């Protein structure tokens, strides 16, 4: 019975749990319930992935209404993969969360914090599960609104302004997306993605359709933080509570990449998106400028959280680059990096969160000698950093390999150079931290390692970083499968 309703359960369970958590008191009980929910969802997402791998695409009709009139939840290899990432990161983040939330969130707001977290998770999972274009907007807004609330709960007063500017830009993005979907509906008469895919080729010359495409791509790009629509990201990541940064850095932009890929390849189709519209010429240059400029700016940052935020903008550039290539190899690289980057960034932000928990600061100057005082935490940071640089035996290397190979196959040599330069810039900003932490003397030498509840999820992610950097069958297999599906489904 569960298997039948798997897809809807992934969304309904956190949705129903949210108001229950809001009614709980204290800080332990809400956390425990949220923890339970996230792990249940992780298990369900795993089962869903296995079901898709063995039985093919799942199609679930909400309320028994047949598509394309009813809302359909359609799970193929691509969104099963993304759903797993979201649920997995949520589960690990919650395992890590208790101490961090205790320190950073005001105690009377704690149940509301967990409520917002569950709603955010609902929104993100909803976006990945649904097969209806308007439903995507609904869940996009749910996840965005809860994210704004989560960010604003940071201790720093600037968290409020960061959340507000994200709210403005995010709403603009969502509105653009809505306009695009509305225009699509007006020319095709349907909102179901598969149905849209069938009808769009018939109207592909209409100006309205081109406009719809443009609105949707720009709207999603704002959510994606594609250069130059990324201005909300550095502040949002920096001033949000540590645990929020861990979660949204590893999930919300990834889900936006999923939406972009889904609309470009499944709904509009690669022939239209790249043949009729100049999408490659839009995405690729912006991706490259984004990855180079963001990496360069990251080097100058003294607040390490901000440095990693700019690093995220750069990594998103890599993913969009893969999509813009419009080849199976490029798409594989992009999807692979979605998974790998989630692992890397979550580990890095968790390490920073542990440093903040102990010292209340993530400024570079305050991290002197931290290598001796928090060896496990800084070890995790170094491992995540090496992955970001793309050292072999880490997931970052696998992503870079596939991306460079995809670029060489297309003969795009300047792009290869850009990708490599991005890695080299990463060496500079990661090594600044390593030098200060390991080779400079701090004020004292006493050990004050992070608590075990924070170390275990952190190192689970580091372990995954290395595991999937060596045994790539699962990740590369899934990414390739999803990429082929996307490229093949295009009419």
């Amino acid at each position: 019975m569960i298997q039948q309703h798997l897809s809807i359960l992934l969304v309904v369970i956190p949705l129903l749990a949210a108001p229950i958590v809001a009614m709980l008191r204290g800080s332990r009980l809400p956390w425990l319930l949220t923890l339970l929910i996230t792990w249940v969802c992780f298990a369900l997402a795993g089962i869903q992935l296995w079901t898709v791998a063995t039985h093919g695409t799942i199609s679930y009709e909400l309320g028994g209404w047949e598509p394309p009139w009813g809302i359909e939840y359609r799970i193929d290899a691509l969104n099963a993969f993304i759903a797993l990432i979201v649920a997995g990161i949520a589960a690990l983040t919650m395992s890590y969360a208790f101490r961090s939330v205790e320190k950073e969130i005001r105690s009377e707001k704690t149940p509301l914090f967990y409520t917002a977290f569950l709603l955010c998770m609902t929104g993100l999972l909803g976006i990945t599960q649904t097969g209806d274009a308007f439903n995507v907007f609904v869940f996009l807004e749910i996840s965005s609104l809860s994210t704004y609330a989560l960010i604003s709960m940071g201790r720093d007063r600037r968290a409020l302004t960061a959340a507000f500017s994200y709210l403005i830009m995010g709403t603009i993005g969502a509105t653009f997306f809505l306009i695009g979907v509305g225009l699509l509906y007006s020319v095709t008469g349907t909102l179901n993605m598969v149905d849209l895919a069938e009808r769009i080729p018939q109207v592909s010359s209409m100006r309205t359709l081109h406009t719809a495409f443009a609105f949707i791509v720009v709207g999603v790009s704002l959510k994606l933080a594609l250069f130059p629509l990324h201005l909300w990201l550095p502040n949002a990541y920096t001033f949000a509570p540590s645990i929020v940064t861990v979660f949204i850095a590893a999930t919300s932009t990834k889900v936006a990449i999923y939406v972009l890929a889904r609309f470009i390849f499944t709904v509009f189709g690669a022939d239209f998106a790249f043949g009729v519209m100049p999408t490659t010429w839009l995405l690729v240059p912006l991706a490259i400028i984004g990855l180079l400029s963001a990496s360069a700016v990251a080097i100058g940052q003294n607040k390490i959280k901000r440095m990693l935020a700019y690093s995220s903008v750069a990594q998103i550039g890599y993913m969009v680059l893969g999509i813009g290539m419009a080849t199976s190899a490029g798409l594989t690289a992009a999807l692979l990096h979605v998974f790998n980057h989630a692992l890397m960034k979550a580990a890095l932000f968790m390490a920073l969160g542990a440093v903040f928990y102990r010292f209340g600061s993530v400024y570079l100057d305050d991290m002197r000698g931290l290598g001796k005082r928090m060896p496990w935490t800084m070890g995790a940071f170094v491992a995540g950093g090496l992955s970001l640089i793309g050292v072999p035996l880490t997931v970052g290397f696998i992503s870079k390999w596939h991306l460079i190979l995809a670029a060489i196959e297309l003969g795009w040599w300047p792009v290869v150079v850009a990708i490599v330069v991005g890695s080299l810039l990463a060496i500079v900003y990661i090594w600044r931290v390593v030098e200060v932490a390991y080779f400079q003397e701090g004020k004292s030498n006493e050990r004050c390692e992070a608590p075990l509840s924070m170390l275990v999820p952190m190192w689970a992610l580091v372990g995954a970083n290395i595991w999937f950097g060596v045994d790539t069958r699962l990740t590369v297999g899934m990414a390739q499968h999803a990429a082929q599906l996307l490229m093949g489904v295009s009419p």
Partner: protein
Amino acid sequence: MTAAMALQLALLVPLAGAALIGLLGRWPNLRETATLATATALFSTVIYILLALLGGEVVETTLIEILPGMSIALHTEPLSILFALVASGLWIVTSVYSIGYMRGNNEKNQTRFYLFFAIALFGAMGVAFAANLMTLFVFYEVLTLSTYPLVAHKGDANALKGARTYLGILLVTSIGLFLPAIIWTYAVAGTLDFVPGGILEGKISDSMAALLLLLFVLGVGKAAVMPVHRWLPAAMVAPTPVSALLHAVAVVKAGVFTITKIVIYIFGVDMLAHVPAEKLVMYLAGFTVVTASLIALRQTNIKRMLAYSTIGQLSYIVLAALALAPYSEVGAAIHIVAHAFGKITLFFTAGAIYVASKKTEVNQLHGIGWRMPWTMTAFAIGALSMIGVPPTAGFVSKWFIIAGAFQLENYFVLGVLILSTGLTAAYFLPIVFRAFFQKELEPPAKDHGEAPWQMVLALSTTAALTLLFFFFNSPVVLLELGILGMGGK
């Protein structure tokens, strides 16, 4: 134990040794014993693999598939086993020397030193026995990262600056040039395996092949071809045992080994012979030899002078490999051994002089030969080997390189060799003369004799090896002539 198991053991032993060293950190004598035991165990394992190879066994093993169609795999052939023998053998000697140096100088962070030394050897073994370019690249990076804490050992601002240059140049060249070259090779040839005769025959145009070769030669920054050589003098901030490791045991040898292996087993000597633009890369190597010798002439700091001497000597090997003559390939391989013995002797003596007398400059060495006779005699032997005069090891490799030059009437190589021999003599011989035939300018602040006995033992051993190699080199030569049968002409 099969030979395939021995290959895996060759990687496992230094790694396990590192863990052991880390655990025994609080008991220095036990920790030092662990290092020596690990080094001896590794050397024995490599000897076992050598015997298997000589016995005609096919020695290879696959560890894990890391990307679709590509695995981390190990094998052995004459070049690999030579590098592995040099690295593992000299690790034993360097460990003895390090004990004397570290204790004589009362250095801090000794456990960190021995631990990362072991990991560096793990990387070196991986590079030596790699069966494809991907495996080699993985261990090449392990070597870079594990030697960073060794170069930065002293921890002061100077050491950090030097270590930053070291890491910066090596990572930039490896990720920026070496990796794209590897991926390009994979895209063109469909495989990265080391195959006798190369994998690029007929798959790439001549001009592209020359460009790819240049990417490799500059990308393998550890070979210190100009202009990616600056990390070598920068790394002189490290303690002398680390310099010995870098210059003789592992790092630079890994670099020139990689280039020679790529020339023979990725491109193929025959294939490169038909690429006219390949000569340009050879000219770059020759330019490096002469320029490095000229710069060495102007140095007053002993270790800096040795650093530039190494840059020149490394490019001998690259030059010989790119000369594409059968004998020059053999000469390149043998020079890996000859230079290792000679240079490690020279670095050991530099360190001994520092520990005993705190002297670091060339012009402070008047008359020191009478205070430290063992040390300065060893220095003289090492210097003669660099110049390439019998009865030292350097003569054997030079002989083969010159023979190779004549084989293909390569007068460029001949000219470079003659010029650099003269220059090398010009910067080394005055030191020997000064040490033995000139009186001390002023009595030293503290009366001193030889350095601690472990250091003198180590440097005497390597000096003896330098001499012995001249007389007993036929097993090595015969082994390396096997490259000709496999990959040369």
